[in-house]
């Protein structure tokens, strides 16, 4: 977007750029104009396993429903609050774009899934760093036997990224962080602390669900370049991590 100060976008902001209210999206555009916008392949992986996967879920729900109102009932009945909220945010995006009618909804969701969402992720981004070599970031939805599939989860048994090596290279920066995080009252931060403690003895512990569920915030904070400010809506976790790792947070 420009040559000004560097801003590193977290997944929450990348999702808000698409699903936020009109006012919020306009605000984000203004805030990022003139800045050098950076994000990462790890953030892209998170984006794929949240918003893009939700879009596939929505597509599947619509394709299986005769009436569109059944889709909302299914979202309410089938999904937990976290997942239902994200699906409804996407649903609202369709309403905002005045996409009504089952066939038009399916067609629009197809364009979102096949390229629209990833294109929107990249829009206005000047640089995508690839510190961890995240294998999931390379995945894209593909059509198999009447439905979209997306491999959005890695497994501990299969090494497909450079996360272990990258974390080991940052051991000096991480020194002391585990101790501080384990003393936190926030369970998610305590878990990161525990995993950092286990890591030297058992490096593969950072793969699979430990990577995608727990270590994401730490990875993103570490990925944020020294001269960039991290922009996120999740201040609860990132304020602690940024303070520990000496990274500034973006204050609009």
């Amino acid at each position, binding site marked *: 977007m420009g040559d000004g100060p560097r801003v590193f976008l977290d997944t929450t902001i990348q999702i808000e750029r698409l699903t936020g209210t009109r006012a919020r999206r306009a605000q984000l555009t203004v805030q990022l104009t003139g800045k050098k916008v950076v994000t990462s392949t790890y953030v892209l992986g998170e984006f794929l396993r949240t918003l893009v996967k939700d879009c*596939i879920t929505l597509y599947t729900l619509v394709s299986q429903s005769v009436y569109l109102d059944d889709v909302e009932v299914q979202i309410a009945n089938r*999904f*937990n609050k976290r997942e239902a909220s994200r699906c409804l945010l996407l649903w609202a995006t369709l309403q905002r774009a005045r996409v009504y009618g089952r066939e038009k909804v399916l067609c629009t969701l197809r364009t979102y899934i096949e390229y629209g969402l990833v294109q929107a992720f990249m829009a206005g981004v000047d640089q995508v760093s690839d510190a961890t070599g995240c294998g999931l970031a390379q995945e894209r939805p593909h059509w198999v036997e009447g*439905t979209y599939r997306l491999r*959005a*989860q890695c497994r501990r048994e299969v090494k497909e990224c450079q996360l272990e090596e990258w974390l080991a290279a940052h051991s000096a920066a991480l020194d002391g962080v585990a101790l501080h995080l384990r003393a936190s009252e926030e369970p998610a931060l305590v878990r990161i602390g525990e995993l950092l403690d286990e890591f030297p003895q058992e490096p593969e512990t950072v793969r699979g669900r430990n990577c995608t569920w727990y270590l994401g915030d730490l990875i993103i904070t570490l990925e944020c370049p020294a001269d960039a400010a991290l922009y996120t809506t999740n201040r609860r976790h990132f304020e602690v991590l940024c303070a520990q790792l000496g990274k500034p947070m973006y204050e609009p």
Partner: protein
Amino acid sequence: MERVLSVSETRGRLTGLVQQVAERGGEVIITTRDEPMAVLMSYRAYQRWRERQRRQARVQFAELLSSAQELIETTLEGSREAGDSDLYLFWHNFKPLAEDLWQAGLEVSEGHALITSTLLDVTLMVLDGDAPLQPEHLAVLKRIATDLLPRPELTADDAAQAHRLLVEGGLRTVFPVEGDLATLYEEAM
């Protein structure tokens, strides 16, 4: 060698044709109104053909099972709690696999056919329902896919065991009946 004869041409010649295919091999394709309808072949050739078919089915079954195991493992790794959309997408992705497993299972053994047909029924019923989906359901599928289905031969008893695991794991295996299915199984045992 392959010969084509109409039904009327085989009348009165069947004994000779049977002797011919049994001793010299080859097949006779029997037609009705120029449409191929049946094949006459030696029993030994038929057995060989069936064995080849079973072997191919076993290979195909093993490949499909490996895909199913991978899908189950990956979904279990990624799903945190009941109502995760990963679970909903899992059942949708599992459906075509379950259909193919059942088709291949028919050729593998009676137990494979029974278990895979139950898995397909379960999948259809899960997709037809509207309850939140549970990660525990996948743990049951994983047990069946890793402990039972890789065995070379399965019996009706093995199928009953799979059935019981599914019911105990909270999955409906037959269309709704009165009463609690798990209790019905306990009473029968």
